[in-house]
């Protein structure tokens, strides 16, 4: 009996491709016996074309009809030996059918024979040559994007072939039930082949039979209704379908049960692979699989004689999958480089050897600065003083206060915690068993880290190691860094360390700088994510810089409009961390500008003017500098850093005067911003140290760090430009060194403000009480002044563990005014008055209502320089009188003097239970913030491919030359 072939062409709104396909079909050396065109187009153009031009039979079906139903309709009542399936975008070579038929005639066991699918535009490139499944059950194209040099022509048996151009034995097709209508479009071909395989038939690819395939479906060129989702989602749905249909039932059900969780894990994987564009597909496919379980179960009912394990040899090897992924990445990178080349962004392609940090002697500098910081060596677990308090005792407690909406201050304070707590969490995570230790080490190493960070930044303008090192050392020893370190201004200190890194990251993400800019999508995403995280950290530490950073970001986007698609995501983590906090301050309290206040314990520093800031004067205004006695060496130490500013000005005379001028404009803007910000007075009266100033100026230290970075980088430009002349370079280098000398001396001098201890902020007995579950509060009463008729007292109601840095809430500072007028604090004031007068009447109820279990009168602060002996004596007398009053109460039992002051225990406490309903480990805010942070962290982590490329350097022409063999 003669074999008959019926060609079934499925057409879907692509008349141009259909015409080519039909042309090819007509020119076959062995023509099919019958050609059936199934048209599911929305319009009539395709059907008209077929009828008029080719006179073939057209079967019109509704446009929503899928591939399986289309083929089934075409074969209805059709008696044929072989079915040749063709898509409207698959044009077979003239001898394609002949080759396919030759193969199946020689091998009767073959039920499905697929052609070698070639690229439509570049027929020398193989688009597909057989399909398989990875170990994880994902459809995998065995050969993709390879040049056809007949190197794969000995391939034969495969797990599956695509339907485009596949010759299928009609009886087997019918026995198998045809294409599965329940399967997603991109799984239908694999499914059919798998069923054929499992039924004992062979599926082969015939390399000699070639079909050009445009792959419109996968390229997303067809209307969405064809795949019913995006191509990527369709591919993922196909994978889900195949796993659920071809896995053993228990495994399939288990897979289904965990499908949403697996979807999230795969989302993480996509982020790690820097493919955020594929997140939607992962979520879509997992939800689709989860909610269409019955469709998958229906598909499982089809008979199979063998298990899927019998096809194990035909599965794709791990090495094949890995090689394929790498090839795709390199292809993308090559395309990106080519596009950059076409755009004229030649600097992105420039490759210049730079010495690495280690090769440049960076470790020596690190050692020198770290040793010079010996006065800040962690002599105890916790460093306290200035704006520094210990962190929570363990990581979990720190996590609870991060992104939380409740603080144990007063009777409980419901408001978003400071975004800065995320920074504290990050630092504390380095030593999770004792988070404070990491903070202490950070304070010690901050100048060292600032050096490393600045070294990277200066690399944007100079490749010379000694230039980078000198400028970076000068930055690390700048007044802003060291002042923040000496005074325990952690936010400013952190900003000083992170700012250069942010500069580097944003430059790489935007394609600025002379070296090391990103090219591949993955690399760009990585830098964007790093920029975003650094921006969030800097913004959380120094909110006053946010407007300036936002302006800078807008400027970057304006200069690099092609990168807007990436850079637009940069502020997202900052917005997530800052959003609830800003909303509370702006809408809840009506103080939007309060969001600019520095987090943590407020400290006041006299603001400087524009000139002093630009000249890097060490905390002295111009008028103060005028008053200096320059016969004294100390006066020169104050003005020496101005030499760096002078060098930075000279950079305007170099070849890079354009960039330097832009940098100077930015520095002037920053100085102006800092001068204005310094004029703002923020409420500083909050929880924490008793010496907190009531009102503090806006802190200029973070601004100064930004200005210093610009000035020292511009100075590096001068140094770089002078390097061609040895004597000039030496002179300029010496000037830069001289400008850093005062900083070195300050570093060696250490700090009078900081001291190191065991991390407790309250007497040990309170800590022990808290650890035993005592939920009472500590009433801290500090006599702060007044006269004989009126005593001024600061009162704080704290948890028994005292105040940790993460609890020094900025929002609380701005809420105190409203709270003091509420119902809670007047009662507390009366209690304090009773205690101060030694009048015990009525204190019992008040103590209970305030949950007070202990009362502490802190030690008198050491006499400040200006404080007279009499005022110190007065303070001691006040404390003594106050202590005597407390002693006289039979509700208070004196527990003696402790290192934190005099302590009393309240006897017979019957506290009202504290409402802790809001004190939860998790909150919606925290969940969202953490999710955003995790997403960006995953995006930021370099993938293996990127690391490999970075390690080898990037050579675009190596990549471009290979395909055409022109190298």
């Amino acid at each position, binding site marked *: 009996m003669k074999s008959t072939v019926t060609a079934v062409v499925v057409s879907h709104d692509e008349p141009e491709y259909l015409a080519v396909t039909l042309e090819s079909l007509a020119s076959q050396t062995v023509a099919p016996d019958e050609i059936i065109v199934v048209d599911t187009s929305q319009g009539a153009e395709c059907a008209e074309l077929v009828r008029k031009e080719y006179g073939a039979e057209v079967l019109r079906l509704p446009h929503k009809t899928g591939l399986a139903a289309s083929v089934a309709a075409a074969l209805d009542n059709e008696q044929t030996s072989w079915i040749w399936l063709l898509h409207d975008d698959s044009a077979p070579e003239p001898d394609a059918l002949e080759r396919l038929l030759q193969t199946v005639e020689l091998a009767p066991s073959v039920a499905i024979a697929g052609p070698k699918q070639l690229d439509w535009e570049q027929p020398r490139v193989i688009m597909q040559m057989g399909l398989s499944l990875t170990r994880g059950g994902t459809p995998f194209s065995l050969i993709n994007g390879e040049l056809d040099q007949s190197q794969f022509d000995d391939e034969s048996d495969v797990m599956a072939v695509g339907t485009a151009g596949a010759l299928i034995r009609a009886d087997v097709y019918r026995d198998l039930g045809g294409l599965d209508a329940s399967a997603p479009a991109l799984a239908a071909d694999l499914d059919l082949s798998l069923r054929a395989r499992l039924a004992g038939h062979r599926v082969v690819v015939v390399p000699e039979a070639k079909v050009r395939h445009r792959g419109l479906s996968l390229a997303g060129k067809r209307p969405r209704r064809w795949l019913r989702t995006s191509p990527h989602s369709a591919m993922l749905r196909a994978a889900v379908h195949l796993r659920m249909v071809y896995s053993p039932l228990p495994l399939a059900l288990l897979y289904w049960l965990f499908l949403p969780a697996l979807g999230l894990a795969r989302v993480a994987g996509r982020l790690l692979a820097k493919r955020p564009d594929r997140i939607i597909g992962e979520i879509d496919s997992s939800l689709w699989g989860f909610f269409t379980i019955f469709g998958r179960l229906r598909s499982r009912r089809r008979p199979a004689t063998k298990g899927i394990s019998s096809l194990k040899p035909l599965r794709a090897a791990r090495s094949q999958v890995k090689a394929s992924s790498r090839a795709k990445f390199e292809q993308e990178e090559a395309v990106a480089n080519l596009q950059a080349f076409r755009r004229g962004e030649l600097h992105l392609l420039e490759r210049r050897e730079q010495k690495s940090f280690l090769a440049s002697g960076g470790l020596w500098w690190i050692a020198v600065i770290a040793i010079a910081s010996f006065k800040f060596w962690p002599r105890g677990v916790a460093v306290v003083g200035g704006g520094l308090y210990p962190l929570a005792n363990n990581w979990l407690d720190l996590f609870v206060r991060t992104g939380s909406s409740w603080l144990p201050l007063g009777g409980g304070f419901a408001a978003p915690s400071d975004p800065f707590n995320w920074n504290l969490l990050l630092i504390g995570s380095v030593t999770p068993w004792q988070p404070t230790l990491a903070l202490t080490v950070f304070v010690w190493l901050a100048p060292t880290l600032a050096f490393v960070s600045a070294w990277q930044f200066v690399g944007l303008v100079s490749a010379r190691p000694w230039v980078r090192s000198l400028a970076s050392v000068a930055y690390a020893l700048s007044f802003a860094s060291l002042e923040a370190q000496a005074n325990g201004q952690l936010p400013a200190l952190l900003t000083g360390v992170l700012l250069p890194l942010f500069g580097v990251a944003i430059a790489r993400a935007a394609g600025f700088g002379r070296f090391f800019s990103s090219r591949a999508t993955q690399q760009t995403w990585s830098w964007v994510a790093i920029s975003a995280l650094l921006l969030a950290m800097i913004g959380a530490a120094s909110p006053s810089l946010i407007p300036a950073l936002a302006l800078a970001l807008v400027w970057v986007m304006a200069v690099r409009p092609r990168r807007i698609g990436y850079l637009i995501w940069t502020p997202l983590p900052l917005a997530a961390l800052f959003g609830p906090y800003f909303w509370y301050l702006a809408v809840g309290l009506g103080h939007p500008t309060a969001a600019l206040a520095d987090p943590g314990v407020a400290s006041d520093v006299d603001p400087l003017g524009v000139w002093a800031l630009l000249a890097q004067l060490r905390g002295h205004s111009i008028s103060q500098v005028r008053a200096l006695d320059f016969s004294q060496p100390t006066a020169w130490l104050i003005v020496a850093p101005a030499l760096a500013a002078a060098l930075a000005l000279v950079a305007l005379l170099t070849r890079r005067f354009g960039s330097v001028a832009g940098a100077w404009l930015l520095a002037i803007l920053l100085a102006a911003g800092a001068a204005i910000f310094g004029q*703002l007075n923020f*409420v500083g009266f909050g929880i924490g140290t008793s010496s907190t100033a009531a009102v503090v100026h806006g802190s200029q230290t973070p601004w100064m760090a930004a200005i210093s970075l610009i000035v020292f980088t511009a100075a590096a430009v001068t140094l770089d430009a002078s390097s061609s002349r040895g004597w000039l370079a030496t002179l300029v280098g010496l000037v830069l060194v001289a400008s850093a000398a005062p900083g070195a001396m300050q570093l060696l001098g250490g700090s009078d403000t900081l001291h190191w201890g065991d991390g407790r902020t309250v007497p040990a007995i309170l800590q022990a009480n808290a650890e035993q579950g005592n939920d009472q509060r500590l009433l801290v009463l500090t006599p702060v002044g*007044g006269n004989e008729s009126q005593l001024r007292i600061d*009162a704080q109601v704290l948890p028994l563990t005292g105040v940790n840095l993460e609890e020094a809430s900025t929002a609380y500072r701005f809420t105190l005014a409203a709270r003091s007028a509420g119902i809670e604090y007047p009662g507390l*004031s009366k209690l304090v008055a009773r205690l101060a007068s030694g009048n015990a009447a009525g204190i019992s109820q008040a103590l209970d209502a305030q949950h007070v279990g202990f009362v502490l009168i802190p030690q008198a602060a050491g006499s400040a320089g200006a404080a007279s002996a009499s005022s110190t004596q007065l303070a001691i007398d006040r404390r003594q009188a106050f202590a005597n009053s407390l*002693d006289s109460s039979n509700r208070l039992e004196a527990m003696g003097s402790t290192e934190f002051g005099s302590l009393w225990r309240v006897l017979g406490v019957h506290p009202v239970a504290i409402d802790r309903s809001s004190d939860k480990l998790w909150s919606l805010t925290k969940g969202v913030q953490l999710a955003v942070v995790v997403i960006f962290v995953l995006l930021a982590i370099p993938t293996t491919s990127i690391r490999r490329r970075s390690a080898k350097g990037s050579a675009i022409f190596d990549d471009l030359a290979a395909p055409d063999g022109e190298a």
Partner: protein
Amino acid sequence: MLKRILILLTIAALAVATPFVLPRLHAQVGLLPTAQTATSPAAELRLACPGGLYQTGGTSGTSLSKIVHAGAAKIYAIGTSPKKVKTSKFEIITKRQDSAGSVQDSNWMTAMQLQLSATDTLGGLAATSCLQARTDSTLIGGDTTTGHETLLTVVNPGKVDSSVRVIAYGSAGRLGGQDLTDLAVSASTAQVISLNGLIPDAPTFSIRVIANGPGVAAFLQQRTVHGTKAAGLDWIQAAPSDSVSSAVIPGVLVRGAAAAAALKKQSSAYSDIQMVLRVNNRGSKPTKFTAQIFGEGATPFGTVLQGSVAGQSTVDVPISGLKDGDYSAQLTSDVPVTASVLLFRVHGTSAPVVDYSWLQQVPAISTGSIAVASSGISKISFVNPAATSAEVSVRFGATTKTLKIAPGAQSTVQIDQGTRVSFEASVPVAASMVIDVDGTLAVVPLINQGNRSVTTSVTVR
């Protein structure tokens, strides 16, 4: 290059000009919390008196471990219906706040106790103010050399037990180690210990009493025996003021100077009849001090003493050459110190009566009251430590006397027996009442102990 120079000049000009175009804001972000003002009535005023003199050895004088009262002291108190609580060892006087008053001070209630003893072992006049409890008291005086006995009495008038540390500062630092001893003083009880056993043969020391818990009132009972004859007696009360750099000791009323000198010459047993200035420095740094003894009238100058005292130490500086007259001591030092003057009185020649009193440094006050003993002669010595003249109006009985005291000068006024004296001064003055009963001597400082209704301005954080 010209272009670059122009850009440089433009940038420099921009930097120079920027400050001139910046706005002046000085705005405050956020509101400061309003301090909550609350007034609380004065606490119950509670004064503790040590009670009758103590005698070591029990009533028989032979039970070494026993310390018992020898007679009873008479309490002179001012105040409407004060409540007296008499225990076996001491007395507490309390006065509750009434609805009208908001201040409880010496005008409201004050008290002193007086006891004249003339036994073989206890001879002399002993008086002391009844004191409010304090957590830190310094007692300047005492002598445990042969013939001298010092007893420490610690009274806890409160309702909560107290733990007390006793520190002794000798001439060469602390005596008896870091702490001389520790005492547990239960609520409403008193503890009496003999310092002769703890710091034997110590001619110079000061005692510091630190209460860990509710405050206590501390007193030293000092007695002297020459051979078998009692030769002086005194209650040394805790210094009314803390350590200061400028101290005033009023009431140095020297009488019988010639008799004293004769007595010393007559017998070496009376060699201890020597006025001294005792200075205690409880700080850690050594200090120099200068004490001026001012008299009254046209030639006020008495003598000048200079000395130095190491940290954690006590020194005695002899005061010699003073003739009979009314004096006061004014002391200045580099660091805060606490000082007292040992004043002797020798009365009679054939069978001279010897007595003494430790005069404490007294804080300056603007008003004060005290009840006057119903026997003997009582005089109040005022000292004006201020830089301006003081006008002091003294009322006792139906009499009102107005004293004008020049800066740094002193003035003495005799008060009628059994009256209540009160004064008002235009500037704060220091005052002590000197009591002479048949040649015996006691000096009680006028101090304004009390509790105020406290108005607190509380800022809650």
